[in-house]
Structure formats: C-alpha cells, structure tokens
C-alpha cells in the first residue's frame, strides 16, 4: 500500500506557507494603501508628531526631505 500521510502533510505545509505569505502581503498592502498602517515622524527636540493622512502625502514629504538633504550635501 502506498504511503500517503507524509505526502498530505507536506502538501498541507506548502498550502500553509502560501496562505501566510499571501495573507501577510494582502494585510500589509491594504493596510498601507488605506492608511491603517502609517509612518510617523518624531521631530528632534519637539513633541510634535507628523501624521500623514494618505500615502501620497507621506511620499511627497519623504521626497521633499530627500531633496533638502541632497541640496545640503551639494553645498
């Protein structure tokens, strides 16, 4: 008789790994796009916290910071 138990266990493990990878990706991507997962900036010597309402705002802020840093390094 062929032994199927080990094969079934291996297939289950593969399905479980795929479910975790796909589930984590969907959870992060939807969370990031909808603004549920946010990146906040804590300014030095300040208690103010910059909170971004959308991904576009956050990316625009990040671009302006990197532009500023580039100009400073050129000078």
């Amino acid at each position, binding site marked *: 008789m062929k032994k199927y138990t080990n094969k079934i266990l291996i297939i289950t493990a593969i399905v479980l790994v795929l479910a975790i990878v796909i589930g984590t990706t969907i959870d992060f991507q939807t969370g990031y796009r909808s603004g549920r997962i946010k990146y906040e900036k804590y300014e030095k010597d300040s208690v103010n916290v910059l909170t971004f309402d959308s991904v576009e705002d956050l990316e625009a802020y*990040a671009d302006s910071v990197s532009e500023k840093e580039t100009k400073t390094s050129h000078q």
Partner: protein
Amino acid sequence: MNINNIIKLIKAYFYENWQKDIYYSFAIVATVAMFSLGFGIFSSRFAIILAAVLTMLQPIKLFGNLYQSSSRMHYLTIPASNSEKVVTNMLLLNVYFVLLMVLALCVGFLLGYGIGYVRNPEMLRYNWGILKEMISNTRIEYLYFFSSLAVMFFASIYFKKNPFWKLVLTGVVVSLVLGAIAASTEWLNVVLTVPAEIRNGNYYKSIEHVSQAPGWFQYVACCVSMVYFYALSFLRMRETEA
C-alpha cells in the same frame, strides 16, 4: 465497519483498564480539590487546564500497544479492522475520557468548595462566582480542546516513541518557521512598498487597529482541523497495518 466489533473492543478496553482509569480520576479529583481550596480564579483555571492536558495524554495510552514491536503485532492481529480500532479509540477519547474528566472536575470542585465552606461559609459564594465566570463564554475553548485531542490522537499514531514530546517539539519548530516566514514576508513588503527615505529615516510605524479574522473563522478552522487530523489518523493506521 461492524458495530459489534466496536462494542467488543470497548468492553475489552474497560476490562483491561478500569482500575487505571479509577486511579487517574482520583488523581484529577485530588488535584482539582487542592487547587480550588480558595486560592482564586487562577488556581481553579490551572486545575482545569491540568485536567485537560491529562485527558490529551490519553491517546498515548490508547495506542500504547503500537510503540513496541511485540505488542504492536498483538494489537494489529486483534480480530477487528483498523477503522474499527480507530473509531473505538475516537469514541473512548471524545466521549468516555471527556465525561470522566468533567465528572472528576465536578467532584473535585465540590470537594474543594465543601472544605472551603467548612473553613469559611463566605467562601462558597466567592467560589461559585469563580466557577460561573469560568464556564460562561468559553465555547471556543471547548472547540480548541477537542481539536487538540484530534492533534494528539494523530500524533499518538504517527510517532512511534514519545509522541507527546515529539508533538511539542514539532509544534515549537513549526511555529518558529511559520513566524519567521510571516516576518520575512512583512519585511519584504516594507522594502518593496515603503520609500527608502522613510524606511531609513527616523519614522515609526503605527497601526491604527490590527485587522482580525472574522469570529466564525476560528470555529471553522477548529472543525476543519478535527476532520483533517482524524482522517489522517485513519490513513496512518491503515499504513501501519501494511
């Protein structure tokens, strides 16, 4: 599958093991009575968990004959099919041992609370409150318990020696590996999605609320895992015979 064979197997089990089961029940009664002597909800909960773990160990006794070559031959040549043996052990585990556990818990709590009442009559009201709190809102915990029984049932057939410790070790390894996969997937998503300036800058990730699986998902997952592990046990038992 013949019902008469199942009944004969159950009778044979009781004939061989009734004394051991009485000692086992007394052990639960004594433990529960000791822990419910007014030490609060944590000790009562601990007593229930201990009784549940002891019940989870019963499949090792039920399939104990499979672990040594001489007794394995004897067990496999008993005039009943392997499906009948698995069904018998399933019934013994899910009905007989669970009822035995519930009965031992009731007697243990009555004994413990009785002694508590003699010492201080006010304790009875306090202990009754604890018991009511523990019994209510634990439907999912019962399902977790029955799915753990199914997992242990399968492990008792699958592993040839020390099934409990091998199951614990497998559980730890699987949890670590799956956790590492989830963490690396999350890291990869951050690298691919979040701009480098933000990733490397002085930013803090904040999550407004953790997304949760719907409530019914746990019930479905428990039921599916029970069916899965009992089906695998049937299959493994047939392979053992071959």
